[in-house]
């Protein structure tokens, strides 16, 4: 498969296909709502998401729209395969804050629902009507070889024509996202290999 497009969100900027599309003002960490406004997206559900979903959503949104995929046609031949290291820990902490103090114990359903790592795959699937496989894996650290082999085996089994895959992590106000849109045939510029995944991440 080939990497048709990719996006990278780090502490201070967003890069799409190698070009910086947004950077935060000096020394500050990137604010995902500012990034959303900058990208001119209109999707009110974004504001309900936790940070991990926001980061993954924005990473996916740019490359999927660029690839000319719409948000309405059901896409059974597209898979979503994501990885990270902290699972949903950022939102786990937020939810724990709603229950920790017995005198102020109000478990929040809208925070709890995001305490699952794979909700980010669901949010991207809902936005884009992606109905193929959706999977989420947790690794100690970014591993291009594991990402490569798991995604390759997935696509081989499902015969997907497109796969949205990569790394989506968020903790301590810091996003770490590398999303790639794979297609079976493309312009042949970037092959989907472990080496190339690593290059795009570093």
């Amino acid at each position, binding site marked *: 498969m080939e990497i048709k497009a990719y996006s990278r969100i780090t502490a201070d900027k967003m890069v799409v296909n190698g070009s910086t599309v947004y950077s935060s003002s000096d020394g500050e960490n990137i604010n995902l709502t500012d990034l959303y406004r900058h990208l001119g997206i209109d999707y009110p559900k974004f504001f309900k998401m936790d940070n991990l979903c926001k980061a993954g959503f924005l990473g996916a949104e740019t490359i999927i729209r660029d690839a000319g995929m719409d948000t309405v046609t059901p896409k059974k031949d597209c898979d979503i395969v994501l990885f990270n*290291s*902290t699972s949903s820990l950022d939102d786990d902490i937020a939810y724990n804050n709603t229950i920790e103090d017995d005198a102020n114990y109000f*478990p929040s359903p809208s925070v709890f629902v995001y305490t699952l790592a794979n909700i980010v795959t669901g949010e991207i699937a*809902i936005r884009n009507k992606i*109905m*193929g496989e959706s999977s989420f*894996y947790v690794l100690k650290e970014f591993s291009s070889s594991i990402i490569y082999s*798991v995604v390759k085996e997935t696509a081989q089994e499902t015969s997907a024509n497109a796969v949205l895959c990569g790394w989506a992590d968020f903790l301590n106000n810091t996003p770490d996202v590398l999303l790639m849109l794979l297609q079976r045939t493309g312009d042949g510029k970037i092959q989907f290999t472990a080496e190339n995944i690593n290059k795009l991440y570093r």
Partner: protein
Amino acid sequence: MMYAIGDNIVCGLGFNTDEVYSSVRRDISGVKRCEGTFGVHEPFMASLVDESMVDDVFDSLHNSRSKSLCRDYTKFEKMMIISAQNAIEKAGVDASGRDFRFILSTTKGNVDLLGRQNTDSERVYLWRSAELLSEWFGNTNIPIVVSNACVSGACAQIAASREINSGTCRYVAVVGAEVLSKFIVSGFQSFKALSSEECRPFDKSRTGLNLGEAAATIVYSSDNEENKGNFAFCSGAIRNDANHISGPSRTAEGLFNVLDTLTENISSEQVAFINAHGTATLYNDEMESIAISRSGLNEIPVNSLKPYFGHTMGAAGVLETIISSRAANDGIVLGSRGFAQSGVSCSINISNMTKNIPERGQAPYFIKMLSGFGGSNAAILLKRVL
């Protein structure tokens, strides 16, 4: 195809598969009323694993490496290690080998460590749980954690089959584990998803789910060496509803697509039964009935094991696969405890009675089905080998 050459279940009904299966056959449920447990404000129904029993069994585990590793393992870690070690011993294989990999299926792992003082802060990470598991057995391959909400247990088996089919590994231990805590119980309570009684999957009077704790392990091998296989994994599928992050699709789109893929090359007469997710929430059970019906599988007996174990989340797919395999080997379909009158809109074949599988020889397959948050749906096709 891969073969299950060893398995184990640790849950409220016991610490090994035979013990647990025999309790289920005697219609014993592990679900009990819990009051004040974990500091949760309202009572709830759940199947818990006794912590002092976990400690005792863990302390008696013979492992030459354990002395040098010795840490204050958590209940979650102890349960997954007990389960894995027992299953690996049954399989009789060397878990430290380069051709062996661990796949951990869990949604929340050690989440109850959050906010606690004096704990090693890494221990709350799911990858750290998997690392502790591999380390215990001296295995140096990077373990993989599958965290796909409540369908994780099926996804982990599918991931294992990909490892084995691609020749990356000869053996994969799929370990599903989940413990309950204030975190998890309060969350489900805030969803108004819990039943105040024993859950009644697919029943007209169902009012919600029960939660449960469990660790369950299946050791899969690429070949059926010495005919050790208890059952075989044939194929699996995972599909997204693309509908809502917490509510299942009203047309069961994702699960229908899963079943459609899974039964591509077999006829419904060849399937002995479908072990449904059957959480006993209004929407889940309704959605499953729609998926089964749309797929034309209405005649196949359907059951749910949730009344025995509660919903064990990341462990459910592994645990329920093991119990179902025992039933398939015995030529029976376990009944859905507590089911009296259908409360789903599609006509499917649910029964509260354990029954013989008719024309057993013709129906070697069984299906384990799951559905979860994030729009995920999964099912696996399994085959008895006895």
